[in-house]
Structures are given as structure tokens and as C-alpha cells.
């Protein structure tokens, strides 16, 4: 559970929708704003978005699920994306990922039970020249190795 996130309520969701709906093609901006607020797209927001944009909740669901970065539930406090595209795999990304999961104590991609870290695969970060690549909390990391990522995470988790 993430203690740092607000519980979604329809009033706030409506306000977020209202702030973006004037834009051309407002659905993605609305979803981004919700993702920023809650670190996921609450299911309760779907009918509200649908109503505001003359869509249906199925359509909104289709869009939300198409993008992996729109989450159904909040991720951990820190997110590691490990590139598993062809170039990175050829430079040992799979082994690197497996070691990282071992280090963190995860069985597979996912979130640690304490909610501190989420590790997920990504298919190409566009950093093939520096493969294997990863991304930690939005910052790209070339020639990534698992101890370095673990160290970054430990630093980020440490009380300031």
C-alpha cells in the first residue's frame, strides 16, 4: 500500500477531468493527470471520463489498458524498467534482470510486498548503443548492472 497517495474520490476526479477536457483529444491528457495524481487510473474514474467525453467506459478501458504506463493499481514507490528488447538481450539484459530480481527478493516482475520497488520489463528504451539499458524513476541508465541499480534504489529509499 502506498501511504503517500490520496484515495480517489469522484469530486477530485471530476475536477481533474474538467481541467483537461477543453483540450483537443482530451482523453490522454486526462489519463496522464489522473496517473500523476494517483499513480494509477482508478476504475471509478472510467464512467466519469466516459460521461464527460461522450464515450463509454469500455472505450476508456480499452485506451487505459493499451498503455502499460497507465496502471490499474499504484506501482511501488520506485520503479525500475529493464529493457528486454533485442539489443539489450544480446548484451545480457536477461541475466542482469534475473540477478536484479534475486537481489531485491522478487520471484518475477512485480512489486515488493513492502511497496518500495516495482520492477518491470520494457521493450526498448531507445538506448541500444549503451545496452543493457534500464530506467530508474524516470532516469535512464546505460550499461546497467544490477548492483548499481540496487544501490540507486537504496539511496532513493534512504531517509533524506
Amino acid at each position, binding site marked *: 500500500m502506498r501511504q503517500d497517495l490520496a484515495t480517489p474520490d469522484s469530486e477530485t476526479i471530476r475536477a481533474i477531468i474538467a481541467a483537461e477536457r477543453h483540450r483537443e483529444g482530451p482523453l490522454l491528457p486526462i489519463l496522464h493527470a489522473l496517473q500523476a495524481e494517483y499513480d494509477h487510473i482508478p*476504475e471509478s474514474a*472510467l464512467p466519469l471520463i*466516459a*460521461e464527460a467525453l*461522450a*464515450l*463509454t*467506459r*469500455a*472505450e*476508456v*478501458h*480499452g485506451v487505459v*489498458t*493499451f498503455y502499460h504506463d497507465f496502471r*490499474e493499481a499504484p506501482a511501488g514507490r520506485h520503479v525500475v524498467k529493464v529493457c528486454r528488447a533485442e539489443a539489450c538481450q544480446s548484451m545480457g539484459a*536477461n541475466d542482469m*534482470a*534475473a540477478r536484479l*530480481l534475486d537481489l531485491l527478493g522478487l*520471484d*518475477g*516482475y*512485480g512489486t515488493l510486498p513492502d511497496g518500495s520497488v516495482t520492477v518491470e*520489463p520494457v521493450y526498448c528504451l531507445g538506448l541500444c548503443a549503451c545496452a543493457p539499458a534500464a530506467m530508474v524513476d524516470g532516469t535512464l541508465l546505460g550499461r546497467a548492472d544490477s548492483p548499481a541499480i540496487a544501490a540507486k534504489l537504496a539511496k532513493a529509499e534512504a531517509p533524506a
Partner: protein
Amino acid sequence: MKDFILPPKDWDMGTPLPKSDATVTLKIDGFDVTVPEGTSVMRAAMEAGIKIPKLCATDSVEAFGSCRLCLVEIEGRRGTPASCTTPVTDGMAVTTQSDRLHKLRKGVMELYISDHPLDCLTCGANGDCELQDMAGMVGLRDVRYTKGDNHYAPTAAGSLSLNDIRAKVPDGSDNARYIPKDDSNPYFTYDPSKCIVCSRCVRACEEVQGTFALTIEGRGFDSRVSFGGASDSVLSSDCVSCGACVQACPTATLQEKSVIEMGTPDRSVITTCAYCGVGCSFKAELNGDKLVRMTPYKHGKANRGHSCVKGRFAYGYASHPDRILNPMIRDSIDEPWREVTWQEALEFTATRLKGIRETYGRKSLGVITSSRCTNEETYLVQKLTRAVFENNNTDTCARVCHSPTGYGLGQTFGTSAGTQDFDSVEDTDVVIVIGANPTDGHPVFASRLKKRLREGAELIVIDPRRIDLLATPHMSGSHHLPLRPGTNVAVVSALAHVIVTEGLADEAFIRERCDWDEFQHYAEFIREDRHSPEATEMLTGVPAQKLREAARAFAKGGNGAIYYGLGVTEHSQGSTTVMGIANLAMLTGNIGRRGVGVNPLRGQNNVQGSCDMGSFPHELPGYRHVKNPEVRAIYEDLWKVKIDPEPGLRIPNMLDAAVEGTFKGLYVQGEDILQSDPDTKHVAAGLAAMECVIVHDLFLNETANYAHVFLPGSSFLEKEGTFTNAERRINRVREVMKPMNGYADWEVTQLLANAMGAGWHYTHPAQIMEEIAATTPAFANVTYDMLEEKGSVQWPCNDDAPEGTPLMHVDGFVRGQGRFIVTEYVATDEKTGPRFPLLLTTGRILSQYNVGAQTRRTENSVWHGEDLLEIHPHDAENRGIQEGAWIRLASRSGETTLRATITDRVSPGVVYTTFHHPDTQANVVTTDYSDWATNCPEYKVTAVQVAPSNGPSEWQEDYNAQAAQSRRILPAAE
């Protein structure tokens, strides 16, 4: 059904037929083919009889180009384009089969099959599966891929590639990609394991039905069809169970439960749906005489291959155990029923009727024809009273629904029917929907309207309630004028006031087509300030500015069409509103071409036909008054009887006369007047005072509680005949199976007439249609042979219009000049006051139909198990009413109880309910006020009070006791 056993005209052509007059000629496999411009290569090939393999294409939806199976080679073009998304061009040379194409298609097919369970022999779609067909067509003989990640195996054992870190399978037992079958919908199942993600269902829901309840969730290999959001099931989603997705699905992923249970049908009969006035054509698909499923017929001109939950799925009532299959009689209504032979029942009835006629005179008998039965049956029933009982005491349920339409349009345009065909809506730019709820009442028409709204047509809804049409997804603009019930005339006049005073009227049209003097008179009247939106706002509750905007939109918006329903007619000023609507259409020049017109949405399958067939007491077939001696002469010569020149009794007059003791015998075919007519107590008193009530129906309906004779009826699946829909289209009804009760309804009426000594000798309904055509000018050229050839025809169909008449009043009004009639608003006498401060209005819901006699006997009750009272949060809070609470609904006429639901769809001061369930008997509450011209009851306005309650009212308890008592049936004598 499997394409290769279908006749070529029923083939799936892959993509829709484009609307174009220009043609293009190309060569396909060396054959010359000429098709309309815009046709896909795939469709052009089909036209030439050359089938190209396909999975994601079907001719009910636009081409999508995702399956890559329909690849072709085109001379001079690189690669292998998809034939479904490639339009034809002049001189194009297409090759549909080559080694290269064969290899590509086989490769694609192999990929599909690598994620598909190969349980064909036990699959619900076995024998009716396009994936199976295509595997055969491309010659797939082997799948080289080893078993890996898949969507079909419930357990993952052995199916996951080793070390695949993507698969979140901690213990290796469950396949996280496997989604179990969803059978929450009562009529069809969704089995994701069989899905090939062709998106046909999603596109059908969007393009054909317009509900957008389905989507593809995820991406890539994760893509799945999803009903609604993450936690929705099929049932909890927005799905309205129209069946379009099931129709479109090429595999067993979306499959009718009846097919899973009974097997693939092996023959089919084209017939017409017996629910609403849209009159959809269906294929009844059977195994032997067992009906397996009903599928919409794509050549049906009313529905164009679409259907709704009622027509497609809710046919189970026809074989419901409640159906009565043997005639029954009793001496008085407090006795139990006795099952008897047909002969005994008919003799009993004839003796009673003759006795009544001797004692009370020939005017003491009458009939009520059915809007549910065929034209031929209705014709016979009115003939029974006119030729055998020798009076004009015939009426029909149209009395209580669209009689003001007949009167109003007859007066203004000269004919008593809608002016357009349903296809016309494709050219509409701005549409007024007034007092109608098409998504629930006429769903297939609503889908066609919604399609046009998505294309940019503007919507104006005049309704006390925020109907679902206003929530149409992807609609651009809409106006909602939420008027107070009972103020239609004021709103329609205010619209006309704006059009006239702002100079928006189409003067050229009016001068050319209408009576100019009458228009001047009307214009003077409507210009008066008291008709302005500002002046009527207090009365109607519609903000003046909104009304002005709507009026301007309608007058300036291009082709303007008006569709209306019972919310217009079922008022004390129903006829006036119909005339006001006709005025609006004439004012704006919106008559006589495609995309415009005045269109009553008629309630029942054959309400148009039952009116056409002379069901009204003052009119012989074809709307010709009985006082007219030349018309009487036609029937007098043919029937060899004297026809009464005086109009007979209307339904309310029959009941009044019964209470007074002068009307004693009534033959009611396929109507439940006790439940459907207003002021239930009065109806009950009238029926109880009669000496011989004959109910001819499928079920022991509520009216039968007061009957002495019950003659079992036959369902629409069990007879030959014709229905006429709201667009005047005469559609054939065909016998799908033999009557379970032994006789089709027309035969029963004939038996009854002959028991009275009539000597009728019809052996087939075609002969009855011959008699109708010979005596009724609008039907002069209609024959069964013609209907067989054309499929359907719209009346008038005679020497002037041998092909029928899709559009009325094209070159001039039927009555000559269009007539403007002054529409003075007179408030109804039914008024709110301190004791009854709320206005009740009534309506319909999608899954139930009319009194519910049919739909309540199907699984449709999953969606609507009881009638609910919609009440605004303010009114609910004032009265301490919670969501779902039992409430007492009382009017000056009576009271009943039901549950409340709180919603702001209704305005404060307005409550709304349906009347589908006899337990509620909403018509106990409605009054006996009625339309000034036609007696159509004022169902739509009743002053009521709502209060919390503990349970059923005294009336409901008495009623249920009486009904239980009355429905007892003695076992047949040994």
C-alpha cells in the same frame, strides 16, 4: 450459418455495399467484374462468385484489415494488399490464388491456430465456424509451432516456455492468460479462450448497434475482447444483448446458448418479428421443428440485418409451459375452467352469443382485434362483427396508443401513417424525437438513428425524462427540452412561433404545397405573444432560450425529420400535438423527400396493419368511413349482408355500455385490455358485467380472469400471414412450426364465425389477402406471390404505385393541399394539487414488452424483474424515500405499491414508471381522461402522491386473490 450451404444472395460479402452510382470495371482472376465505385476488391470478387479467405471482414461492418488472410496480388502493385481494405479501380487486374498467396495465407492461419484450442468436435460452433472453414480453405494441415504461451489452456503445465520471466506463474499450475467462459448473459456465452481478436464483435457493437459496450483491452499478445471495464461481466457491462456481436463472431467465442445446447440448425425460414412496430425480418433457424435460434435477416428492409434482445432472443414464451393449448369454458367467472374439445367450446360460445343477440339485440356484441395478430386475422375479426354479428362494434388497442396519429395526420396530410421508410434516416440532418424512447421501445431503429447522430446529425429531444438517446456515444450536439408532462402542445406551438416570427419558415414550400389561406390564418394565430417560448416557459418548464435554439436548429439544420411516440398521443390533447407536429414539418418544408417527414414510432408489430384492416368502429378497411354508401356497397356485395351505416362502439364505450347493461358479449383476440387499458377498476367492472367474454390468447392473461371462454391462440411462429410495420411495410410471416394449439388464429376466428352460421371457406391466408386487395385500394396490387418475390412492399401498392410507396406526399399531399390547423393549448383536467402534487408519466424499458405477457416468460426478466418508480432526489428526500424502498403510489383513481429508484433523469415534480408487470398494475393509478378527438387515454399524465409503504396495497391483494381464484383449471374429464 456455414457459407457454403447458403444461397449466394445470403453470402457474407465481406464489406458493405457502398452508396455510389458510378461503376468500376476490373478483372479478377481473368473475369470482368463491374461494381459500384468504392467497392472493396474482396466484395467485387464475391460478386463474381470468387471467395477470398477472410476472418476479420464481414459485410455488416466496415473493412478493418487486421487478419491478413484476404491478401491478393494486384498487377502493377508491390506486395500483397489486403483485399478488404483495397478499393477497386478501373482496369485493375487481381489475382486471388497463387503459390505465393497460398503460402502466406497458410502461414497466417498457422499462427492463428497456434493459439486456438483444437476441440472442434465438441465445440459449440462445430459446423458453423469461419475459423474452421478458413483452415480448410487455405489447406492448413500442420502447425509447426511448439506448444507455448497461450490463452486456451486453463493450466499452464507444459505450456509455458522455460525461463519466461514474463509469465507471472509462481507455482506453474495456472495459466494467467486463461480467462474462463463468461455465461452471465442468459442468451449467449463469451469464451475468451476461443477468441482470435478479429474485433468483429467490437466493431459490430460500435457500428451496427451503437452501444460501444465492447473494447479490445491490452495490446499485442495480451489483447482480449472486454465487455465494459476490468471488473465487468457481460451482464454488468453496457451490453444491451442485441446479438450483433454474436452475429459477427466467426468462432465459438460469442455463441448462443441455444446452439450450444441443441446443435447447429439445419434449415431456416424467413419471417417477421412479432414484437415492436419496427418489424424486423428474421431467419428462424431450426432442427426439424425445434427452433434453435432467431437471427436477423440481412435482406430485411426494415432492420438491414440488425436485431434487439427481444426479437433475437426472447422467443421462449412461444413454448413456455404457461401456454394454454386446449379450449376452456365456464358458466360464470367464479367457477374454475373446464378443458373441453374445440367443438364443445365453439358450440358453447355460439349458443351464448346467439342467446345474447336474441335477448339484447345485435348491438350487444362486439370484438377487439389484436395489433399482435396478422393483417389477415385482424381482417377476419372485424369481418366477424360486421358480417356475422351485424354491427360495427370493433376496436383495437390502437385506440389506446396511436389513434390520434390516424386522426391528426389524416386531417393535415390526408393519410394516417408515417411518411418515410426507415432508410430515410440516413439522410436526416436534424431530428426531433418527441415523446418517444427509441433505444428502449424501437431499438433497431434507434441504432440506425444513432449511426446518423454519430455522423453529425443534430438531436432535439422533447421529453420529461432524459432518455438514453441523449447519452449516445460520439454524438456531436443535442438539445433536451425537459417539458412538464401534458404540455406538448404548448412546446410544439412555441417552436412554431419561433420559426414563424423569426422568418425561418419555408414560404416557397408552403405556397406550393399547402393551403395558403389556412396558413395565413394559422400564422396569425401562432404569432401571438402568448405562444412565445418566454410566455410558455412558466407552463412547460422549458427554458425559453433553449427552446429558441432548438427551433432554429430544426428550421435551419437541413433535412429535418420528426419521430414521435406515445408520449405525444396518449394525452388529452394527443390529436392536437400530432397536428402541431404536422404543422412544424410543413412550416419547414420537411415533407416529401428522403431524410425528412413525420414518423410515428408505432408500438406493436402490427398496429399499423390492424388500423389499416378496418379495426376501428367508424372505418372499413383502408380508413373509409362506414357512413359512405359506396364503400359499404363493396362489402355488402361481397359478404351478402347489410352493413350498419352507424359507427360502432369504441373500447371505453363498450365498457361503459357493459356497466349500463346494454353490451353483453365480447371476443378479444390477442389483447389484454385489463392490464393495458387505463383505469383498471373500470375495465374490470365492465368485463364482469358481460355474459360472454371470449379471450383468444396464448396465455391466461389478466383479461381472461373475467372470461367465460378461452380459445388457445397460436404464436407468430405457427402461422402464415402478414404484418405491417411503422413504415407501412407489409412483411410476410411464415409458418415455422405447426400450431401447438391445433389451429392458427385465423382458423379459430373462422371456426367461431362458422359456428355462428357464417359459412366461410378460407383455406389459406393468401385468400384473405386476395379479398383485402380486391376491396381496399391501397392494397390493390398486394399478393403473396408479389411478397415472395420482393420480400416486402410498402402500401399504397396499386396501379399508381406498383412497386409500393417508400415515401409519401412526394409530389403533393394525399389530401391535395397540406392543411395547417390551429393548435390551441388546453391544459388537461388532470391537475396536481396538495393531495397529489407529483405528475406520473409512464414508459417502456428495452428488455420488456408491453404488458410483459411474452417477455416476462423469458430470461429477459434478468434485466427488469419488476416495475420501478423513478423519482428525483429532491422529491425522494422530502418524503423520506430511500433507494429501493417500497412506496405507495396513489392517484385520484386508485393506488398501488412498487419499489422506488432515485434518479435525476426525471425532473423534480415528475415520477416515472413502466407497466410491464401485472403485480404492479400501474394502470390502477391512471385516470380515464382521454384525447378529445379519439378517446386515446391519457396514460402519460396522472397527478399522484408517493409515500413510503410496507407492502402490497389492498387492491393488489384483492386482485391477486381474484386472479388466483379465476385461474383454476379442472383436470380434463376422463
